[in-house]
């Protein structure tokens, strides 16, 4: 058992030198806890995120779109699984983490508490939500914890594909019939601000930021990432003739940034604390799937136990 203060100094020196932390390395308990929190929130977000998009799989307008959306939602399940496995390297089980999600103890990306009302929402989610996720995850791909960083590199590749797919859906709608164009603009109007909120509170109000930055988990601030996302997205919206719902949006020649209007943090707080449009429904849907699948999981476990018993004492001893 290393002396904690000395070990922590050594740990922080390693991080300062740009080394990655691997599962068997010593790490401060607080670092472990923060990573479990971040990784499990991320995994939960992938899982809950399947619901708003899954809502349109059976109504996708062409076979190609149906396959694209199915593949995207399948990717998200895969990301969730991958990140849960990554979190398990920190000494917590997937079952525990899922239990925290189902009991409402753990958080997930608040944006999935908004409803998908039209097909255009599938485009907007791909374009904005995956777009914002990419900005965030590109940074996390350099995070100090090795398994998380590696998961992010792999996941980012798929998210890039999702974002292009979402943008292409929006471009098609924006160039379509008046009804389609209206659908696209309406989705932009509803998803834009919640997407900006995805980067989390402004740095001055973000309780975890300083520590995460010192430990090399976060390499950029919430505000920097948000600004980067806005800068990227403004041009994309113009290219397909859709309007971001912010009258204060203006370009600053000096900083080369697109300045945007004030974010409604009261809405953010409200949704994160349970009063978003669909918080209850999303959690209820996850709980319902988990509860109605219990007998299946029990069957699989019972079957595995029978086969293990059959294969006899040698396997048990091993």
């Amino acid at each position, binding site marked *: 058992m290393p002396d904690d203060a000395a070990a922590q100094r050594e740990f922080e020196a390693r991080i300062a030198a740009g080394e990655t932390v691997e599962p068997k390395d010593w790490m401060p308990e607080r670092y472990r806890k923060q990573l479990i929190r971040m990784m499990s929130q991320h995994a939960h977000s992938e*899982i809950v995120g*399947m*619901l708003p998009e*899954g809502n349109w*799989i*059976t*109504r*996708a*307008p*062409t*076979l*190609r*779109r*149906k*396959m694209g959306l*199915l*593949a995207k*939602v*399948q990717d998200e*399940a*895969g990301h*969730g*699984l991958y990140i*849960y496995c990554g979190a398990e390297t920190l000494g917590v089980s997937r079952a525990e983490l899922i239990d925290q999600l189902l009991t409402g103890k753990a958080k997930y990306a608040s944006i999935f508490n908004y409803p998908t009302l039209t*097909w255009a929402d599938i485009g907007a989610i791909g374009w904005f939500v995956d777009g914002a996720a990419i900005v965030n995850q590109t940074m996390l791909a350099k995070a100090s914890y090795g398994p998380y960083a590696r998961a992010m590199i792999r996941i980012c590749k798929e998210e890039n594909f999702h974002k292009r797919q979402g943008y292409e*859906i929006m471009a*098609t*709608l924006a160039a*379509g*019939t008046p*009804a*389609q164009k209206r659908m696209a603009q309406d989705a932009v109007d509803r998803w834009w601000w919640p997407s900006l909120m995805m980067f989390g509170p402004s740095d001055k109000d973000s309780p975890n930021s300083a520590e995460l930055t010192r430990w090399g988990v976060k390499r950029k601030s919430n505000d920097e990432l948000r600004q980067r996302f806005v800068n990227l997205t403004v041009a994309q919206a113009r290219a397909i003739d859709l309007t971001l719902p912010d009258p204060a949006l203006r370009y600053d020649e000096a900083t080369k940034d697109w300045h945007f209007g004030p974010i409604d943090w009261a809405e953010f707080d409200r949704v994160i604390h349970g009063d978003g449009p669909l918080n209850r429904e999303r959690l209820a*849907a996850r709980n*319902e*799937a988990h509860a*109605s*699948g*219990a*007998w*299946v*999981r*029990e*069957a*699989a*476990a*019972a*079957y595995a136990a*029978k086969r293990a018993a059959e294969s006899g004492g040698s396997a048990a001893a091993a």
Partner: protein
Amino acid sequence: MASTAHPAKRKGEPGAVPALDPALRAALVQYLLRLGDDRLVLGHRLSEWCGHAPILEEDIALANIALDLIGEATLFLRLAGETEGAGRDEDALAYLREAIDYRNVLLVELPRGDFAVTIVRHFLFGVAAYYQLEGLTRSTHPALAGIAAKALKETRYHVRHAGEWLLKLGDGTAESHGRAQAALDDLWRYTGEMFLTDAVDEILVGAGLVPDLAPLEAPWRAQVTDVVRRATLRVPESGYMQRGGRVGRHTEHLGHLLAEMQILQRSNPGATW
């Protein structure tokens, strides 16, 4: 075979469809609709699990299988449209036909049910599909044989997936055993339709385009019986077999499924997506 990844040539390319006399062509269109509709409707039912499966691994597996089936349906329906030559593509066939024009077996349109219903249905259908596709790989119609070869590879995996779960459910707990047996008992009366043949089959079998389905029932039954018994379940008695899907006489469920699936195409005529 890897060379059959895109077996159906696109419209307008020479050699996409061999010259067929009108009767043979009409029969082939019907047959391709049967193949395509079976997979589209079953893929749709499986996709309903997305985000609601018993474990995350099954969210992934069921979505993957749904994706395979809808991909196969796309190829079969595209070829049906090209063979028909009336300007309908795979989307027109999927999204703008009425329930009475759908040609899938009744088995695949039944509601998704619990996980046991989903697994048992998939196993019963998958084994039959496997034998049918195997025969179709020897079709004298190159495009059809090509699609069948791709689908056969996928179906082999689907059958293994469903078969493994059938063993787990049948030989798992008392509850899972009961649910699996109930699913078998409920679905059994829809299995006979998979091997029914009519004038469409007759003319195509005669021309060497498709295999005769009737002789496939015996190997299907043998394989199903083997797995069902190993799963400690009982093969139901074969009583009256429900039928009608192949000629557009469906259950009440299909209309609701199509209403959901077709809503955007129906409410925005002529739009591009």
